[in-house]
Every structure is written in C-alpha cells, then in structure tokens.
C-alpha cells in the first residue's frame, strides 16, 4: 500500500522533456497531453515579447528608472507557461522575479514594475488582475496561495492558484507548511519551483541534498514532478496536468530545472560565484531558441511570424520606455492612506505634521 502511494506521488526519475536542445522531439513520458502547435506558436510569440520586456527592464535599471530589476532571462519557458495555463479566474502568486509571467498574463507592464520602480509596493488591483502582490520575502506567499485556493474551493468555484517560487525558497519553513496545509485541506494549488540553480550566490548543492526539489512534495502527500524548465512543450504539458489535479483537490509540486542567465539583480556580481563556461552551457539550452528551432523544423513558424513577434516586443519596449521616462507623480500625503480602514488619531496628527512641513517647503 505504502509503496503504491509513494509511486503515485513520486516525480519521474529524470526531468520530463519532449524537446531536445536542438529543437528535435524526444520520447518523453506517457500520460501527458502535449500542447497543440497553435499553443506552441502562441508560446513562442509570448516568449519573444517576454524576453524583450525583460531586456528593456534591465536597461531601465541601468538608466536609473528602476530601483532594481531581477531578470528572468533564460526562464522564459517557465514564465510563459505559467501565464498560459492560468484561466482568467485563476490566481497567480508571483515573486519579484516573475514580472514576465505577469506581463504575459495581460497586465500593464508599468503597473507590474511599480514595485521595482519604487513608487508603490503594488501598482495594480490584485482582485482585478487575480494576481497577488509580488512577494519579496521567500515562500511566505505559498501559504496565502494555499489559503486562497481553499477559500475558492469552499466558495464553490473550480478556480485554482499558481504559486511561483525559486529554489532557495524551498528551504524556508513556510514552503513546507504550505505543502502540508495544501495536502491536508485538499487546496487547488500548484507550486512551481523555478530552480535556476542559485539563491543569489548560494548554489543548489548548498541549498538542498534532495535528489530533486520535487521530492519535497512526497513527504506531505503532494504529487510532484520534475521537468526540463527550458523545454516549453514539457512545461506546458506538466503544468496542464498539475492544474487538472489541483482542480480535483490534489495540490501539485513542480520542480522546473532552468537557469538564471543574468545576475540575481543589477546589484549582484555573478562572476564572483559562477564561471562563464557554466553560463555558456546554459545559453546553449536556451528555451526560446529551442522552441523556434522546433517550430521551424515542423514548418509551423516562418520568418514573418518571428518578425511579427519581434515587432510586438519592440512596440511593448518602446511604450514601456516612454512611459517610464516620465517621473511618476507622488503625493507624500498618501503615506498615511490605507494603514487602517480608518486612520487612528495618532496618524491624523502625523498627517497634519507632514502637511505643515510640505506647506513650509512650498512657501
């Protein structure tokens, strides 16, 4: 009996993969429904646009327009698949590195970048976007995702929740409590670990001795899978299956093996802890190039298609540039808004103090 349960929960021995690095198909595991060619063409377009958005955001940091930007270049297959499997009524719980997924979900890039620009902690209405605030502490939002998933199920919907985290976050206690709660309460939540091999500078082998981060689900009774995170076909196939399980009340944990091509953020010097040969190896495993080769190989992608996707990316980047070049209008008095539903008398006094200071500065 216990053998049976463990077998059901265990991830495959090697990461699920359907595309080789040269774009040719390989025999992946049975039991997964592979995405259609149309879905893959959509994924390709989104990945091109997403990469352009990421490059533009990195450039905005260098121009001082963003306080910080954690790039997700190299993780496009994870980011885009995350956005594509979500229905409009599903919820996304992103981290600071998941801006690409949010933009691909259809959110305004400027609203997505507000946190990183530094003018507000969350630049959008989470209820309208069905996207939680981008989380900076690690793994804390996996519990919120689990609680909300349980609430959605109790509300009688079949909406589900996707929580994104990185490899380092699997060491945090909240990650383990979230897996446990999700399994006990049968919450429709999928945890997607983007294992990009480093938590800032700490490599995976100093982070975990588990054979796969997906093994961490087994002890909690959570079905788990590991997947080639640079294979868009595999990412979509595994995420779709995970959401089927989640909607049926069985949470799911995915470890996606990928790589962070850029440094942790612009403030990080990645050459201090990894060598360029390693980065070069991962550049060869690029998810966007892999999908493009595959689609061209099967005659499903033309030069015109690629040019069109690139043009869409350029339009987004140009729009982002011009809108981010304008200084945001900030009202210091807004500091006192939304601390409580109704401000305390102490906050009213402090608000008056600031108003007086501001008036004196004007005069």
């Amino acid at each position, binding site marked *: 009996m216990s053998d049976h349960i463990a077998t059901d929960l265990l991830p495959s021995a090697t990461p699920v993969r359907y595309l080789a690095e040269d774009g040719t198909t390989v025999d992946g595991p049975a039991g997964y429904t592979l995405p259609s060619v149309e879905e893959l063409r959509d994924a390709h377009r989104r990945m091109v646009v997403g990469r352009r958005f990421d490059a533009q955001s990195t450039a905005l940091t260098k121009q001082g327009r963003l306080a910080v930007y954690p790039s997700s270049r190299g993780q496009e297959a994870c980011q885009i698949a995350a956005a594509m499997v979500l229905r409009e009524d599903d919820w996304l719980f992103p981290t600071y590195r998941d801006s690409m997924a949010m933009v691909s979900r259809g959110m305004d890039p400027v609203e997505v970048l507000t946190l990183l620009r530094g003018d*507000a*902690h*969350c630049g959008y*209405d*989470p*209820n*309208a976007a069905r996207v*939680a*605030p981008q989380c900076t*502490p690690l793994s*804390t939002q*996996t*519990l*919120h*995702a*689990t*609680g*909300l*998933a*349980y*609430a*959605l199920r*109790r*509300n009688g919907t079949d909406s589900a929740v996707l929580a994104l985290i990185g490899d380092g976050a699997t060491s945090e*206690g*909240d990650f383990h*409590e*979230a897996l*446990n*709660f999700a399994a*006990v*309460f049968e919450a429709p939540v999928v945890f997607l670990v983007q294992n990009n091999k480093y938590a800032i500078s700490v490599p995976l082998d100093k982070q975990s001795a588990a054979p796969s981060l997906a093994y961490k689900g087994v002890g909690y009774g959570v079905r788990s899978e590991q997947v080639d995170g640079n294979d868009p076909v595999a990412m979509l196939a595994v995420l779709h299956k995970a959401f089927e399980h989640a909607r049926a009340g069985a949470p799911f944990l995915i470890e996606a093996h990928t790589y962070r091509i850029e440094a942790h953020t612009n403030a990080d010097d990645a050459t201090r802890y990894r060598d360029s040969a390693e980065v070069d190896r991962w550049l060869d495993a690029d998810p966007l190039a892999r999908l493009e080769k595959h689609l061209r190989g099967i005659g499903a992608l033309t030069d015109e298609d690629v040019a069109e996707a690139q043009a869409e990316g350029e339009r987004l980047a140009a729009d982002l540039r011009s809108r981010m070049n304008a200084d945001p209008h900030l009202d210091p008095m807004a500091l006192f*808004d*939304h*601390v*409580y*539903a*109704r401000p*305390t*008398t*102490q906050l009213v006094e402090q608000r008056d103090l600031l108003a007086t200071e501001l008036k004196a500065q004007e005069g």
Partner: protein
Amino acid sequence: MAATTMAQALNRALRDAMTADERVLVFGEDVGQLGGVFRITDGLTRDFGEQRCFDTPLAESGIVGFALGMAMGGYKPVVEMQFDAFAYPAFEQITSHVAKMRNRTRGHLSVPMVIRVPYAGGIGGVEHHCDSSEAYYVHTPGLKVVSPATVNDAYTLLREAIDDPDPVIFMEPKKLYWSKEDIELRHVDEPLGHAAIRRHGKDATLIAYGPSVPVALQAAAAAAEEGIELEVIDLRSLVPFDDDTVMRSVRRTGRCVVVQEASGFAGFGAEIVARIQERCFHSLAAPVIRVSGFDIPYPPPMLEHSHLPSVDRVLDAVDRLQFTDEPDHRYLTGAHS
C-alpha cells in the same frame, strides 16, 4: 442568573459572531473536538460543524498565512495561537503580511481577521507559556491590538474585533479566564479604540490594561482606605490608543502610574509615559512612574510572584508620586515604604 467566566464570554462571542456572519471561521490547533486548551472554542465544532470550526496542522506560521489567504477569499478567520510564545513562528506572517496587506495594495486588499493570543502569566505555566508579547504587535503599523480585562469586555471587544475591517491581535489575559461576573453579556456596537474609566478619583491616575487592571483596582481600593482617590483607566485597546481619555484624566489628577505585566524596558508603558509627558507636562505635579515586570525572561512558575507587579508594588509607586500638598499623607509617615 449564573455567573459567567471570561472564558465563557469569549466562547459566547465566537458563537454569536459565527451565527451572525457565516463567513466567520474559527481554526487553529486543538480548537475543534477538544475545544481549545482553555476551552474557549468549546462546542463550536459540534454546533457549527467542521466547516466552521476546525483543527489545523500544528504550525503557527501556516495557520496565520493560510488565514490571510482565506481572508483574501472572502472569509473572516478567527485563529488561535494557543500560547503567547508559540505565536512567534507566525511573527513574519503577522508583521510582514497581515499588518501590511491593506497598505501594500493601496486599499485593494484587506485582510480582516482576528489572531487570538492567550497571554501573560499568573497561572503557574512552565517556560514559554506566559510571555507578555503585546509590545511586539503594537509596534507594527497596520495591526490593532486589544486586551480585555472584564468579562463583558471579553465578549464585546471580541465581537468588535471580528467586525473590524482590519486585522486585530486579541490578547487574552490567561489568568482572568476564570474571573466571573454576574452579568448579561451585551454587544456594544462601537469601533475599537475606547478606554474605560473603571474607578473615578482625583488624586492620581492609574493606567492599566488586561491582566493588570484587577491589580490596579485593588491598589485603588487599598489607597482609598488611606484617603487617596485613584482613578483607574482600563485601556482595553492598545492600538488604537485612546489619547483623549488618558490625557483628560492625567490633566485633572496631575499624577500618573502606568501598570503593565510585561517587562518595562521599551515596553508599551514607555509609550504611554512618553505621550503623557509630551502632552500633559504642565499639568504634572510628579514624574509619571511605570510599574512593570522585571527585564528578565519570564521566570519559572514558582518564582513568578516576585516578577509580577503586585498591589504593594503599585502602592509604592503611588507613594513616590509625593502628595506633598496633603500634609497628613502616608508618604510622609512612611507607610508602604
């Protein structure tokens, strides 16, 4: 009418809130079949079903983070932390997320929830069962922090906390769980943030909250026998803080002692004293004095009586207010010294 204990009043508050609003859910560790280690949730699972009152895995951060997600989904969780010091694993969730969600999202998300923390000592509990942890919470903008001292307040403040649109840390003084009052519980429909004057007096003001209120009242009764009329203010709500009631009283009496069970250094009492000296300096006839627990880790149960502020320690502080305008005062005769 049978006397009601504070524990029963809290139970009634949960029942009445659950009856009034089906979004109110009670969960935490041991709150289901057992009814909580202090029986505050007694019978709720039986009467409302496991969907409304349920046990969770033993993980405080999990309980609070899960509750936050449920609040995002439209529910009003009332969670129990079982004991003060056991709530610390949930501290990050409380301070980084529960307290800030309204502000982070500029009002788009609010997480109305109540985190019940049985706190403070005087019950002979062993290590990690008797912390006065209120200062950690009052220092965090976005949280409301309340502590009842009477049976009726236990009922009405918990109802108000559950109705409140913001997250509330509800500090329950464990040693008062079994205190009784022969009263009919009533729901006062007013927002949190009002202090209560428990005893009127003109000579000095005693400010207390939670477990220290009965101590202050006993001290006032003892002082009255010696002709000193002490006013006793029960704060009830630490955040929001009722400046108005406190300042009006101190301006009238000109003297003040703040009593708290928690360690004194950088405690909530220090905030009260600072506010009073900023606002009432010219009305003060004596320095404002704090009476608190010592600045030590909570002691073993057989020694806690030496740590906790006693009636005598409060009266000694009252003596130090130097009622020099009253020539026959016992301070001059050496009583209580």
